[in-house]
């Protein structure tokens, strides 16, 4: 293996040179001949009936080409934006989804929902046109609050009590029995704050229609262009699948918010055929705040039953999850299969029962956001465990230790559907305590106190199910798509390689990590590997990137294709060595045979594959190019131990994160630098959720935090130097032994921070975000 670029090396990222020199090609950088510009006209009301829309004055604006309303899309047979996962309620009924026309027709249901759009020669003219569109609205009472949504005004005609579903998981009777026997019950009312994702690149789309070939090309900021294509073709029915190509070029961050199929790209690609010209749209930051799918927003009652010695006996969780105004693409799965299934955490709690009621409100749709369901689950479990330890007078580390699933219990079947393949939770915990200088804590606390500060410490031992996902399992649970991944490895005549993947990089560094994998296995230079992604016209159908799936599923698919390449290479080599392929070895980039002292380098075999002189063509096809589809047999289960120490200034309530330790088990790691970067970013977002970020709607449904003036994104100086390390129990069921690392930081960190803050303040709960004012008020209430 090459020490600088092989598996396990922190190779510098191939993509960074173009990104940091401004040479990336993002959707908005792409311009095509005849391009027009589009601006969406968005609802100023949280809930209103559209009585009429006046487009005449907009049409009169110089440069305006067309003004479209939702009725025109409906008339043209354009379907609703679908939700791709059908969750079934307790009573056996499927969830109730309201109609979701891409462009509102009869009602608008959140501030920012588009009800018309203007296409013009210039962006300026499109803006002027959009300003000239007016509508006559009958304003209706808005429903905003998650906790009371079911008893508020009914938003959608077909959705009684504003409830999409009332779902359950686990054994209710067994759980009730565990509570009946318990010596102690810890209960918490938990609010998981609404977050607004804020990828650095706003969403954008450029749609064009070629009348000659009757084909559509959509450039868009999607985390999964293939799914975008399928949804637009088969469900929304914009174009036949064969006639639609979707390209996601460089994408500047997604965090989940770019998984979904949105109104804007639908409108743009559809309308491009109507006007016969390409149409470009790019969101302003204000539009991103209003119209990107938001994250989290749960109200939960959680209870943990324990024996007097701290043994966890049962867990009962009842959550109301805010879906916003409509069911976004994967929203229904987030507070159910990505949430309830994680309630065992790292513990052998024998009885668990989870109920999730999904409700509609007049707010932006809520869907997967970095971690998606798993941060919410970890928050519930880890806040409960820490609180229980305090109530029982136990060391929270000790309480965790006695409840950890022991290493000899794997594979471990949880009471909430998942089967963990492997893990060593005590090992991560031990390493984290060491890094955190646990022994020095009392001295640090004393020093803080001497300086008039409050110091607290909190832990969080998270688990996540990622590497999404075993197709047959998720299809059985209501998913509308399989979740395998595709790969193609195309060897060039000279032995360089082009890899096509159905996963998509929007910051993760696939061009580097996948190149390391290929170069390591084929023994060819790292620079000879070119990774292509994000184009339905170039790679096979794949499922994109989210759920920390790219290396575990996409990487495994590449690995499988590499097996085929090597197998074929051996066959070719066997002919050259005049032996059989089972006599040929491949290692370090060389095909060798015991009967020859002249091994054949990979490049030579590649050349021989394309200049087919040495092998019989009735036995072997020419060429060296292989495809693979990999469907995982299980989820992967990254897990880790996080320790956070905070120092609070009681005079202002300011919280300083004095120490943050993260020890993660991602199994095998291809590029430690990239993994560490992913952990850093995730922790930044988790600390953002814990201390800073809060999407707030006022009582009439206006987004009060619609810009950076009011929505606090974490900045570098809000964050400490993270101490990051790893342990490893390789995944047992994928060929690379990898687990995935994209979400861990965001999953594990909020509970660690909030456990530290509640410890410092000596209170049971503080709601996120723990802003200085919130912390100060908590202190005031205590004195």
């Amino acid at each position: 293996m090459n020490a600088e670029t092989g598996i396990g090396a922190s190779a510098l990222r191939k993509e960074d040179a173009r990104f940091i020199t401004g040479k990336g090609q993002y959707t908005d950088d792409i311009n095509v001949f005849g391009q027009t510009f589009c601006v969406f006209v968005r609802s100023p009301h949280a809930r209103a009936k559209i009585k009429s829309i006046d487009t005449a004055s907009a049409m009169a604006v110089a440069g305006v080409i067309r003004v479209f309303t939702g009725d025109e899309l409906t008339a043209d047979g354009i379907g609703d934006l679908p939700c791709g996962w059908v969750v079934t309620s307790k009573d056996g009924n499927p969830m109730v989804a309201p109609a979701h026309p891409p462009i509102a027709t009869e009602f608008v249901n959140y501030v920012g929902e588009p009800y018309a759009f203007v296409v013009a020669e210039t962006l300026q003219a499109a803006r002027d046109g959009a300003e000239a569109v007016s509508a006559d609205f009958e304003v209706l009472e808005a429903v905003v609050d998650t906790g009371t949504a079911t008893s508020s005004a009914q938003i959608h005609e077909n959705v009684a009590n504003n409830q999409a579903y009332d779902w359950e998981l686990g054994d209710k009777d067994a759980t009730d029995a565990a509570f009946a026997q318990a010596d102690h019950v810890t209960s918490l009312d938990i609010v998981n704050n609404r977050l607004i994702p804020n990828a650095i690149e706003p969403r954008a789309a450029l749609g064009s229609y070629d009348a000659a070939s009757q084909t559509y090309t959509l450039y868009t900021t999607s985390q999964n262009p293939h799914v975008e294509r399928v949804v637009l073709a088969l469900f929304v029915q914009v174009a036949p699948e064969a006639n639609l190509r979707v390209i996601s070029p460089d994408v500047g961050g997604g965090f989940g918010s770019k998984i979904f199929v949105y109104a804007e790209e639908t409108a743009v690609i559809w309308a491009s055929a109507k006007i016969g010209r390409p149409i470009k749209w790019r969101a302003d930051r204000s539009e991103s705040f209003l119209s990107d799918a938001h994250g989290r927003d749960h109200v939960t009652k959680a209870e943990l039953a324990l024996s007097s010695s701290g043994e966890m006996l049962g867990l009962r969780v009842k959550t109301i999850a805010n879906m916003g105004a409509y069911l976004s693409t994967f929203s229904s799965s987030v507070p159910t299969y990505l949430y309830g299934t994680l309630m065992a955490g790292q513990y052998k709690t024998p009885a668990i029962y989870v109920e999730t009621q999904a409700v509609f409100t007049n707010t932006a749709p809520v869907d997967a956001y970095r971690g998606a369901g798993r941060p919410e689950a970890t928050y519930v479990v880890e806040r409960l465990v820490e609180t229980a330890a305090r109530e029982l007078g136990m060391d929270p580390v000790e309480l965790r230790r006695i409840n950890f699933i022991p290493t000899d219990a794997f594979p471990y079947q949880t009471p909430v559907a998942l089967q963990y393949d492997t893990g060593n939770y005590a090992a991560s915990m031990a390493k984290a305590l060491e890094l955190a200088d646990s022994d020095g804590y009392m001295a640090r606390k004393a020093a803080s106190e001497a300086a008039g500060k409050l110091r607290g410490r909190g832990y969080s031992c998270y688990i996540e199910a990622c590497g999404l996902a075993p197709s047959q399992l998720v299809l059985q649970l209501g998913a509308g798509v399989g979740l395998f991944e595709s790969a193609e490895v195309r060897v060039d005549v000279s032995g360089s390689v082009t890899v096509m993947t159905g996963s998509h990089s929007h910051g993760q560094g696939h061009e580097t990590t996948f190149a390391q994998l290929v170069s390591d296995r084929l023994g060819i230079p790292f620079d000879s590997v070119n990774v292509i992604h994000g184009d339905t016209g170039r790679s096979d159908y794949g499922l994109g990137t989210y759920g920390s799936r790219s290396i575990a599923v996409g990487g495994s698919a590449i690995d499988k294709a590499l097996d085929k390449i090597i197998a074929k290479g051996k066959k070719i080599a066997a002919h050259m060595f005049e032996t059989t392929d089972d006599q040929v070895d491949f290692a370090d980039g060389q095909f060798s045979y015991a009967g020859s002292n002249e091994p054949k380098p990979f490049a030579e075999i590649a050349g021989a594959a394309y200049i087919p002189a040495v092998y019989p063509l009735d036995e072997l096809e020419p060429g060296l190019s292989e495809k693979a589809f990999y469907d995982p047999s299980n989820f992967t289960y990254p897990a880790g131990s996080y320790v956070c120490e905070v120092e609070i200034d009681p005079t202002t309530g300011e919280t300083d994160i004095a120490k943050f330790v993260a020890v993660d088990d991602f199994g095998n790691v291809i590029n430690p630098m990239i993994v560490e970067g992913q952990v850093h970013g995730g922790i930044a977002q988790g600390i953002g959720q814990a201390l800073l970020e809060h999407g707030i709607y006022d009582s009439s449904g206006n987004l009060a935090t619609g810009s950076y003036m009011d929505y606090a994104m974490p900045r570098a100086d809000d964050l400490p130097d993270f101490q990051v390390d790893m342990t490893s129990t390789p995944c047992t069921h994928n060929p690379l032994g990898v687990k995935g690392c994209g979400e861990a930081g965001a999953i594990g960190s909020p509970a660690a921070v909030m456990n530290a803050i509640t410890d410092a303040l000596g209170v049971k709960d503080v709601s996120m975000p723990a802003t200085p004012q919130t912390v100060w008020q908590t202190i005031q209430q205590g004195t």
Partner: protein
Amino acid sequence: MHRFNFRQASSIAEAHSTHAASDDAVYIAGGMTLIPSLKLRLASPNDVVDLSRIDGLSTISSAGGVLSVGATARHCDVAQTTDIPALASLASRIGDAQVRNCGTIGGSLANNDPAADYPAAVVGLGATVHTNSRAIAGDEFFVDLFETALEDGEIITRVDFSIPSRAAYAKFANPASRFAIVGVMVAETSSGVRVGVTGAGACAFRMSSFEAALSSNMSASALDGIAVDSSEFNDDLHASAQYRANLVTVMAKRAVAQLTA
């Protein structure tokens, strides 16, 4: 942005007459406040009159115990000055580097954002705001929310700060915008102790109760037990009036601690 006419002025007189001749004009200096509001179409003037290239308008000079800061001196320029470290430190903490490289003291004062930093210095240091037609005492300049003593079309030309014997500025930044939720300037000047507060109310004001206490005892503990009346304070998404009242005391104490350190 709506269309507007961009008018480059080369002198104060020209700027003033261009403004007067238009039925809907606005000055631009650094543009850090004006341009975002133009882009969001919250403002749509016919004429934008640029002050930023007027010769001498950005000059910073110091003579006779007075630091004189030209209206178009940028925050980054003021941050480099040494006569009043508290003022330089205040300027160095406005917004981010891009904002400091464009934003000007004149623009900040004319805009009079309730959360802006400079007003605390103008009030707290007892500065004098000079315009194309008069001199306005710092205490008289800020009238209400986004409202100043400036007449329509009046141009700030410079701000004169008498150099205090000691001064310090403490800021509690809004976690989102980093503007001041509360900022307090405490100064020992030739005319006595002054305490200027920004962020807490509709516009900057002096805390006379703090000034009295600090005049006899320049120490943080002198402020203990002095009630802060929050009845007129801002109460919004970011901070309640009560929390702001607490911050006024805490920031004043921090400033005093720094000043006496």
